[in-house]
């Protein structure tokens, strides 16, 4: 009797392994091998010079030296960061305000379901199509310039202008992500113990003070999470500026992002430099993820970790 029970529990453990087989097989074939191969390629000189194939020759860290010091990568890193900030600052401010309004007991806003539906919608739109749309709307003969002319202004060549191009990418990132961030922050605000808020009010704290001293510290884990996932999304920024500028990152490569640059090397088959750049991007993402993990495991109450992870379904601020 006893032995049969024991053998039964062993056979159940077996099912645990069996059910993991598809995930790990597919992960190894389609993700792990490519990742290892990317690292491996980064140590080899391997590109086309005209029609001549150079390499692959082992060159150690030479590709890393080249990509960091002899290319415009620092400029593209700066572009990526700047455009991300242009989208993120309005995003976090607007989302914070909306989250407070939607959850406010005093305001009792109506139609919040409708507004949430509307502001979340751009998040589901194909970024390639959305930026194609923005490009046609803001092109030299597009509807925006038509309106400007009709109102008596000079037409603007938006895509010849550095600030306008970067600003449009930032605006699109803002539109695509502020609804998502609002919903995340709302979950955080609703999770605050209402008795703490009431206590602050009884103590006569102004709403502004309550906000800074109670609300913000209470949702800090979620805020840090939103910040860092958005940053990871920002590092991955590609679709919008790629389509908007037709891959040129124009004007004068001032809106070229790091992934656009990676994409260029992948298309020109410079596998050494593409590999080194991939590894650098991998390390940046790994560091940010590690900080997220630290932040969540040390400070976040359990529910918050759950809700955060869930939301990462939609990733950061691509």
């Amino acid at each position, binding site marked *: 009797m006893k032995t049969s029970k024991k053998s039964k529990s062993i056979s159940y453990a077996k099912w645990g392994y069996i*059910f993991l087989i598809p995930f790990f097989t597919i992960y190894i074939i389609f993700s792990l091998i490519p990742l290892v191969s990317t690292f491996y390629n980064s140590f080899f000189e391997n590109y086309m010079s005209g029609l001549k194939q150079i390499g692959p020759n082992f060159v150690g860290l030479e590709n890393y030296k080249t990509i960091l010091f002899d290319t415009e990568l620092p400029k593209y890193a700066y572009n990526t960061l700047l455009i991300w900030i242009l989208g993120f600052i309005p995003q976090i401010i607007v989302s914070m305000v909306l989250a407070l309004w939607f959850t406010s007991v005093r*305001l009792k806003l109506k139609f919040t379901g409708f507004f949430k539906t509307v502001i979340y*919608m751009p998040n589901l739109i194909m970024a390639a199509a959305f930026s194609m749309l923005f490009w046609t709307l803001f092109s030299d003969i597009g509807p925006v310039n038509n309106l400007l002319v009709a109102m008596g202004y000079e037409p603007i060549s938006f895509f010849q202008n550095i600030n306008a191009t970067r600003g449009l990418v930032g605006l699109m990132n803002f539109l695509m992500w502020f609804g998502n961030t609002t919903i995340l922050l709302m979950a955080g605000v609703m999770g605050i113990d209402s008795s703490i808020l009431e206590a602050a009010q009884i103590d006569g704290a102004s709403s502004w003070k309550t906000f800074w001293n109670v609300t913000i510290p209470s949702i800090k884990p979620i805020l840090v999470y939103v910040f860092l996932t958005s940053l990871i999304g920002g590092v991955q920024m590609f679709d919008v500026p790629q389509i908007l500028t*037709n891959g040129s990152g124009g004007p004068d490569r001032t809106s070229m992002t790091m992934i656009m640059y990676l994409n260029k090397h992948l298309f020109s088959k410079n596998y050494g430099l593409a590999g080194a750049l*991939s590894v650098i991007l991998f390390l940046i993402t790994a560091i940010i993820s590690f900080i997220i993990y630290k932040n969540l495991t040390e400070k976040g109450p359990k529910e918050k970790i759950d809700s955060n992870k869930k939301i990462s379904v939609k990733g950061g601020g691509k």
Partner: protein
Amino acid sequence: MSISKLNKFLCYLVLILLSILCLISFYLLIINSTRAHSEIQKGFSFNFGDFFDANLKNVLDNDQLPVLKGIRNSLFVSIGTAILATYFSVLTAFSIHTYDFKFKRLAFTFIMMIMMVPPQVSALGFIRWMGELDLMDSLIPLFLPSIASPIVFYFMLAYMQSNLPKATIEAARMDGSSEFRTFNLIVLPIMKPAIAVQAIFTFVSAWNNYFIPSLIIRSAEKKTLPILIAQLRSADYLKFDMGQVYMLIFLAIIPIIVVYIILSKYIVRGVAVGSVKE
């Protein structure tokens, strides 16, 4: 009283302005998809035209842009992704949730660790390796990898922890149900709400995916919609019929919006489901 009314008014004003900001580009898109090239060139109008059918017909008949095939390929990849990602994520979560085995903790930690690795950083190895497997210019590498979706897995696991009591599985075992049968006939139905939410998200992200497909797909036959849009962007713009340009964007965006409006209640709830679940 009047101050609070003023506050409320300001809130609604801001919300309405933000909503307009979100919707206006789609409104312009719909307007221009109903207007002929010559009308669009003449200037903007807030009125609908009557060229919707003609634009649709023109873009579907365009020899340079295999739009119908693009829609078919996109649907195939997206539906495949949604089915594989949800089914196998529930299966993986079921393994971690239900069974006790030696490497369980390790497997879970590993999946959590790879969750944040973006596909772009291994794209180089991916395309070279797909070349060796003879999967270049194939739709398979666009949906098969979704069997291993760490984020969907995590969502399923969280849902399972609060909705699938171990007693249910024990009861099925008593009835002599095999583990695989229990999974398919008892666990999957319980997981339906979570599967629905994730099916939508995975479908949409596959539908919108551009980076990896643009590196894998070569032939016109296999192009998905985002690749066709990028192709249109790099074509000589002035030669193009703008009615068709808007119509192609319309076809890529509007079906998703329609589905979203129908299911928005579940989607918006799904985004923050973790915090609502208890």
